[in-house]
């Protein structure tokens, strides 16, 4: 076993950063659900693939650019998110919410997977557009264009989300709800409404992520299982409930994954997420950046 060359390491690093951006976008959705409702949304990756199929079918039937489809899927998913929160999640008894919500969203994931299987069969799909199948070469490293686009979209979406949370009245209300629901209600925030919108925003990130995913990889109905563990590990490492924490953990794990992938292979790279998860729980259960929130949930 020779040492990996510098260019290979650089390549791994580059791919890791680009993938980490997508992880950051997707884990921001999970963090939102957890923040506003204290629930773990197991179906998030399933919605991601639902969106990818949406992109695929819109692209195939109307010839629409796959990136433009997110302007249709994201609003639909936003409303869907509000609906799911109001009609399903809000019905669960508060004392067992944490665990029952996992099972409920697990059921949603099965429904989506089975539904996609019925409608679209189990075969693999992919969306290929000419502008995305080349790559830029800089400093001896290839940057695939589809991943660059994906990273850019993730960055823009996250920046917009961050602005929304930091600079708007609604954002303040959302953050207040995340921090202390009762206190937020006391100061006159309509926490029910805020919660629904928070959920909708989370699902909208899945729609955007799905369009990106459709562009960069092949997918099939059962593909979401591979993502659940990874994304869950990221939000625990980042600290449950912290959007910045999740974003930083996503980039960190993405980069480490990229480097391990090019040096040691696919299986160690996949295991790495779980090692980080267990190490975090043992050494710093609140996560790298989480506050006291995580210890209790």
């Amino acid at each position, binding site marked *: 076993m020779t040492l990996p060359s510098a260019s*290979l390491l650089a*390549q791994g690093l580059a*791919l890791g950063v680009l993938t980490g951006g997508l992880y950051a976008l997707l884990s921001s959705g999970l963090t939102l659900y957890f923040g506003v409702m204290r629930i773990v949304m197991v179906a998030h990756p399933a919605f991601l693939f639902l969106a990818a199929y949406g992109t695929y079918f819109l692209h195939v039937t109307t010839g629409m650019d796959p990136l433009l489809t997110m302007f249709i899927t994201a609003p639909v998913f936003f409303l869907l998110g509000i609906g799911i929160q109001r009609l399903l999640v809000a019905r669960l008894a508060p004392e067992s919410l944490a665990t029952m919500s996992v099972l409920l969203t697990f059921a949603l994931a099965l429904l989506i997977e089975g539904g996609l299987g019925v409608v679209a*069969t*189990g075969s693999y799909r992919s969306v290929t557009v*000419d502008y995305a199948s080349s*790559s830029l070469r800089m400093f001896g490293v290839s940057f695939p264009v589809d991943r660059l686009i994906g990273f850019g979209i993730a960055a823009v979406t996250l920046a917009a989300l961050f602005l929304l949370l930091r600079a708007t009245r609604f954002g303040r209300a959302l953050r207040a709800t995340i921090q202390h629901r009762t206190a937020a209600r006391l100061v006159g925030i309509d926490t029910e409404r805020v919660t629904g919108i928070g959920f909708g925003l989370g699902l909208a990130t899945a729609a955007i992520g799905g369009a990106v995913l459709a562009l960069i*990889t092949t997918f099939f109905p059962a593909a979401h299982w591979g993502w659940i563990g990874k994304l869950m590990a990221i939000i625990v490492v980042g600290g449950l409930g912290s959007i910045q924490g999740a974003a930083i953990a996503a980039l960190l794990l993405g980069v480490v994954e990229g480097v391990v*992938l*090019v040096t040691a292979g696919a299986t160690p790279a996949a295991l790495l997420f779980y090692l980080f998860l267990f190490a975090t729980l043992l050494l710093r259960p609140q996560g790298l950046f989480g506050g006291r929130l995580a210890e209790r949930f």
Partner: protein
Amino acid sequence: MRQVVGPLLLAVVLLAGCGGTPEDPTAGGGESDNPQATTGATPSGDPVRIGISLPLSGDFSEPGSGIRRGYETWADAVNAEGGLDGRKVELIFRDDASDPNRVVSDYESLITRDKVDLVFGPFSSRLVIPAAKVAEQYDMLFVEPAGAAPEVFEQGFTYLFYAAPAIASDHYDYLAEWITKLPADQRPKTAAYASLDDPFAQGTAYGLKENLEKAGIKTVINEVYPPENTDFAAIAARIADKKADIFVGGTQFEDSVGLVRAFQELGYQPKLAAFSTGPTLPEFDEAVKGGSNDILSPTGWAAESGFSGNQEFVDRYKKLFKAEPNEDAANGYTVGQIVAAAVEAVGCAEQGEACQGKLADHIRANEFDTIVGPLKFDKDGRPLAAHMIQQWQDGKIEIVLPDSEVQTKELRFPKATW
């Protein structure tokens, strides 16, 4: 209110679940193009009832339905010619959802509950071993279309036969021979291997690897990735970094596409590229957007071949399904041909060691004319012929090896850029 609604809804679900006897899966299914749908249980007697479990849903549903159509084409042909040993053929399909628990459950119920006269094999090396075990323990002949991995034949099964030209590790034999015969100055020096963690895919790639290593072609990288892997950029980067002359992929469809696309993006151009399956499907060229040129694959069957009954198979398949047959369907048809020949020769088709043992002995001792060529088996059920090598040339699949009457074009080397 909630307290009442819940149990009521549940009662409805349970009633839907338990009411009445389960209808026959082939009769109630969504596919209307099923010419041999059986209805209910017929008393064992006149028709020859053949039980089959296939992955009609789940990860392997695509090849599963290909094989199903092959079986149906065969049954249609046999019935058109007066049946099997004078008896009509009925196929009973069960879905196994690509799950070994289901596959065992299916064969268990087909053999002991439905009391079928014969069984045909399921799809995928991963499912064949548990299924073959059930057949073995109930003394049922088990000719199968898809369990090609070397491990399948090391389990001591006496009723199992693989109905294709060669087992996985021998699929590339003609290609290995061709490469090693190249003049020294043209012969590639290094090879890279990447394989899906699957007994069949690894079997094919490592069969070639062994032969190339023996010929002095150095292995510079050997990568195995788990089945759930969909991101091939990093794996491709590792391989591209070594700039190997030959790339060999132990692949199914989606990963072969993923790897080609990732190589395109990284600008890695090997002199020769071979993939187990993926390029064998007609969709491959479209999926890699014209990057298919000169890619090689082993194949057990060619649409144009003149082997016994091939033209009839292709015509009948097209008539029944309004589509082009593929290798999976051909393998299913081959299973039918072999079993039919054995039944006609032995003169029985019923459960019990007396009949099934004779059928197995007959298959072990004889050679069979099939649409993939003449087939003979060793004592463990391994077929003793060889796979052909196909190559994509300008959007068409051509047979390039062996250099005999099946060859349609010369092998092109070194390969064009992708």
